[in-house]
């Protein structure tokens, strides 16, 4: 399943490192990263592939990312990519 991971919040050192470590530990492969920083505000989108036999379910991964995000003052979401496909592709 393809995931979209979005991270929004105040910029700081190590955001990508933290998130990509969590993803790697759970067999989630990053396919694409896109980010910008505007006035110290960090916006990032990762497209990633989660294998069928991943260590965690998507629900569990979401909880881990959310908890880590709260520690860093960031809003981290992981969503099934189809929600974006249906709203932007015919």
């Amino acid at each position, binding site marked *: 399943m393809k995931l979209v991971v979005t991270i929004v919040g105040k910029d700081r050192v190590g955001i990508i490192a933290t998130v990509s470590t969590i993803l790697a530990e759970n067999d989630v492969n990053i396919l694409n990263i896109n980010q910008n920083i505007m006035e110290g505000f960090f916006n990032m989108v990762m497209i990633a592939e989660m294998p069928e036999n991943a260590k965690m379910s998507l629900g569990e991964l979401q909880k881990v990312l959310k908890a880590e995000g709260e520690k860093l003052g960031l809003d981290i979401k992981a969503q099934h990519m189809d929600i974006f496909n249906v*709203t*932007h592709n015919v």
Partner: protein
Amino acid sequence: MITFDDIFETNRMITENKLDVRTITMGISLRDCAHPNITKFCQNIYDKITKSAEFLVKTGEDIEAEFGIPIIHKRISVTPIAIAADACETDTYVPVAEALDKAGKEVGVNFIGGFSALVEKGYTKGDRTLIQSIPQALASTDIVCSSVNLGSTKAGINMDCVREMGEVIKRTAELTREQEALGCAKLVVFCNAPGDNPFMAGAFHGVSEGDKVVSVGVSGPGVVKHALEELKGADFTEVAETIKKTAFKVTRVGQMVAREASKRLGVPFGIIDLSLAPTPAVGDSVARILEEMGLEACGAPGTTAALALLNDAVKKGGLMASSHVGGLSGAFIPVSEDEGMINAVQQGSLSIEKLEAMTCVCSVGLDMIAIEGDTSAATISGIIADEAAIGMINNKTTAVRVIPVPGKHVGDMVEFGGLLGYCPIVPVRNKYSSAAFIARGGRIPAPVRSLTN
């Protein structure tokens, strides 16, 4: 390829503009549960509902989390009980309502609809028993919803039932007076009721449906309002185009949720209901969309035209986004469930008479309107007859869900809680009597436009 901006736009629609899926509703046929013994019948329906919908709530929650789209309610609709229980040898269906309530709570749904009768042309014994049981059934249950279809374009209007429902609404209000007549918020009277509506209080599993079906009702007034905020002063062609595009996106989300739910539950997909359903939350209002089009307050002259445009554009945008569209599919204008409507009533801009005019061009009808508790049954029946006539003549669904709150008067506020919201008492300005008109009874014949063959 989806862009960075697309992703943030979708998430903004969800977080800031309150895009959500209002309900996943599982329709369950109870036609195979019939039994002359009511205790056995109640056991049959309890077993069938709890088995069929065992994973409905969990599936809804999983989809909600995985896709990041809120799914506000999970609901069940069943075969109209007047049909399913017709064989029962009993003079009350209150135990049936209690069995529905228990089954719905067991599987964790928010509402269970179908304590219903379809009587536009006449009554069976089961229909009479059901209608007489409504007040007590709604008073002794929490999540059961009831509806009665008493008119259609094909059959005309059953004026005996119009008379009776005025009285049933009054009795329901009386029996639930401690909760601001909450029973009436779970009771709707229809003309041309669709059998595949996923929205409450009017959902039931139509007799032409399969054994089980999953349908989805979308929402999204906040998303439409936000899109129109970018169009200050633009002409109506542009307004309609923008609403269509927005409705398309909203409906595509609903279709995706329906497809996933259908696949995971192993139950066929029924329909997407394109209704633009508001909530009492700020930023989730249909009235505010109409105001965004340039009306100082909802209810001002021009409101019906604005609503007509909105309703039509939502359908045009939504149609292509879904493989099967059905249910009510149009903008809802409930008063207590829409922050902008509540505000318009408080400002004196929106009256029950204007709301009646608005129901000619949108889905449903006079919905969630609290009126004075001493409004007579005949006046309520008169309101029902007028709405049913609008539906019958215009070949559309209309409904009445009014709440005559005992002891409350114009100037008072009534709180129903949750999605049902809160409502100032709306004045029924015309104090002249409809009693002799309603007392006639009989049937208003089907209109000439019913003869389409």
